[in-house]
């Protein structure tokens, strides 16, 4: 397991996050902006829905022919001079990357943000191998200074306020930034990382797309750190999930139009770069070697089960920006590599359901994530599928099973159910005065935070039957 499940339970982590008002402030600032920008970008693109259908069809096509495209990609990447590696698991992927680093006697590695890299536990693996790793994406740089994991797949440091970032930079930059405004701090990071970019032995990136018909990998960034990571060093390593394949550059563009609008509300990121093999003979710059590590890590398993549609995910982060739960608890409380709705589907795949059964349950199934997902992933349906599996496998707590069992026993017997609810509402009335119940045993989760309307003495069915009886009414 790449991501050891953090020790306190999900509920404990969530409560700690809820108590952290600074965290809430940070989340609101970023997700609020992201939501507004996405809405504006979609409004300005009337073809969005059609584009979304096309994007979905492209991903489905690739997923249906993944073997064909992976082989084609491998052929073309190899022909361009890259070396392609295959990894079944996160451990294999880590081993491949560290081996390349050690063989090259690398001392300093720069890395451009890649969630796949986080998924396979690359940061720790490099540290364990004694290799200095410098994160070059500004947000990754922030969390590296803080010794944290990403809390969002687009804005990994979104849980940090500017004031907190300033504190980290004052401690971590030489000279420290002169002021706390984002512009000054960005300048400070620019200065701090420059020498690292140019002094690295190896640059590691992820890939937003693997282009089958050229063998190129594609990164999209706003900062330009990916190119500064992948160009100066002697070796460029790409780690990518096997589902990142697209048939051609044109297919990548069709998906890019969706990805960027959904992620940041832009039309394209500032830099969309295709990396095809190492530098060509005579090229002015570029790495001498390029390695591409294709990672399965649970993906082929998803192909054959009810989570297949999740392989369409293009990692835009829109689902978490629009999630009421994410916006209250932030990314770390989820405890996996990927947070929010998509993470709640993926973490049980990656880390096992037993340790993460809370994630698919901690959701109101309100459907906003599916509504904004640019490739139409039915996230609530997939979360419900995990709930069914958790129920079938007996992972749901006994109290819930027992409670639901009694309820279902009654609900399956209408006459008994009516009797029970007639008695139930009268009993319920005993707990309140006036129109409200302020404290209710067994429903403490409700009444700890809100009042419960006190039911009238008679159920609808009871009253209805009486009125009909008086009228000599129908059925």
């Amino acid at each position, binding site marked *: 397991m790449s991501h050891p499940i953090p020790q306190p339970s999900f509920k404990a982590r969530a409560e700690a996050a809820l108590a952290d008002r600074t965290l809430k402030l940070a989340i609101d600032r970023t997700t609020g902006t992201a939501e507004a920008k996405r809405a504006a970008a979609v409004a300005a693109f009337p073809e969005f829905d059609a584009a979304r259908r096309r994007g979905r069809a492209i991903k489905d096509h690739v997923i249906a022919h993944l073997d064909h495209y992976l082989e084609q990609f491998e052929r073309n990447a190899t022909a361009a001079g890259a070396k392609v590696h295959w*990894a079944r698991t996160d451990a294999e992927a880590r081993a491949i990357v560290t081996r390349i680093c050690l063989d090259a006697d690398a001392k300093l590695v720069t890395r451009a943000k890649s969630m796949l890299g986080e998924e396979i536990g690359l940061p720790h693996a490099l540290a364990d191998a004694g290799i200095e790793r410098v994160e070059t994406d500004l947000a990754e740089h922030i969390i590296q200074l803080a010794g944290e994991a990403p809390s969002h797949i687009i804005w990994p440091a979104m849980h940090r306020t500017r004031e907190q970032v300033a504190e980290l930079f004052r401690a971590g930059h030489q000279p420290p930034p002169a002021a706390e405004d984002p512009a000054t701090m960005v300048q400070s*990071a620019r200065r701090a990382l420059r020498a690292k970019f140019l002094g690295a032995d190896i640059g590691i990136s992820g890939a937003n797309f693997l282009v089958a018909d050229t063998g*190129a990998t594609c990164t999209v960034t706003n900062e330009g*750190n990916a190119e500064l990571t992948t160009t100066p060093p002697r070796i460029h390593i790409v780690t990518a999930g096997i589902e990142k394949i697209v048939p051609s550059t044109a297919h990548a563009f069709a998906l890019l139009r969706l990805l960027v609008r959904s992620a940041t509300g832009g039309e394209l990121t500032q830099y969309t770069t295709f990396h095809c093999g190492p530098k060509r003979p005579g090229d002015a710059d570029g790495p001498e070697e390029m390695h591409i590590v294709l990672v399965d890590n649970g993906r082929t398993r998803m192909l*054959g089960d009810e989570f297949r549609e999740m392989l369409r995910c293009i990692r835009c982060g829109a689902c978490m920006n629009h999630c009421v739960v994410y916006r209250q608890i932030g990314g770390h409380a989820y405890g996996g590599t990927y947070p929010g709705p998509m993470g709640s589907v993926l973490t049980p795949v990656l880390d096992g359901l037993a340790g993460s059964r809370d994630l698919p349950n901690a959701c109101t199934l309100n459907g906003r994530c599916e509504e904004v997902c640019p490739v139409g992933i039915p996230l609530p349906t997939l979360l419900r599928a995990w709930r069914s599996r958790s129920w079938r496998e007996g992972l749901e707590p006994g109290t819930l099973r027992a409670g639901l069992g009694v309820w279902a026993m009654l609900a399956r017997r209408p006459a008994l159910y009516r009797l029970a609810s007639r008695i139930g509402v009268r009993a319920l009335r005993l707990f309140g005065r006036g129109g409200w119940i302020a404290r209710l045993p067994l429903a403490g989760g409700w009444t700890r935070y809100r009042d419960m309307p006190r039911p009238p003495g008679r159920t609808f069915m009871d009253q209805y039957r009486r009125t009909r009886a008086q009228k000599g009414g129908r059925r």
Partner: protein
Amino acid sequence: MTARDDILGAIRAARATPARTAEAIAAEAASLLDAPETTRPGLAPAAGDLADAFARKAGALGTTIEHLPDIAAIPAALRRYLDTHGLPASLAVQPAAEFAGLDWGGVAIHRDLAPDEPAALGLALCGIAESGSLVVHSGPDAPVLLSFLPLHHIVVLRVDTLLPHLEDYAALMAKQASPRNAILITGPSGTTDIEGSYVRGAHGPGFLHVILTRSTD
């Protein structure tokens, strides 16, 4: 079994229907790109001048635009640019044939890029009107870092290389061998990593200046 065999085997084992031929797959892939106009933004102004459409998009991203009649007018324009921004009269210049015979006047030009190069001049292979993007390809006379190290990135873009849409560039790419890097530059480097607020010049250039020329001579 190698990891490769295992992964490909698992994919095949998960397939519900028989594998299709490469031709059938390619045909389906091509059909997924049919009628591109239905799923991409139109140009503004519609069906107007590509240079106009490009300038509008790029301008909205914070790219500054200057129109020059030809390449010979570049050195004077550069002097003005460097002056306006209070930069020394010195410039890293891409070793492109197009810039070879120019009279640089008082601007000292060099090829090697300093880690904190203040300003560099490059040549775009083409531009894309839909997104206001510049395209550069790496090559012997086109270092990748020229587009990333300087604080001010000045790019010459010939109007006759402008393409309407991303698909048009993909079609162009499909006809030639891929360079090591093909890069679409869409506005100056920026970040929203601190509280979502937008700051320019994160690692790449904080200033992107495009010189649109009608011809190369």
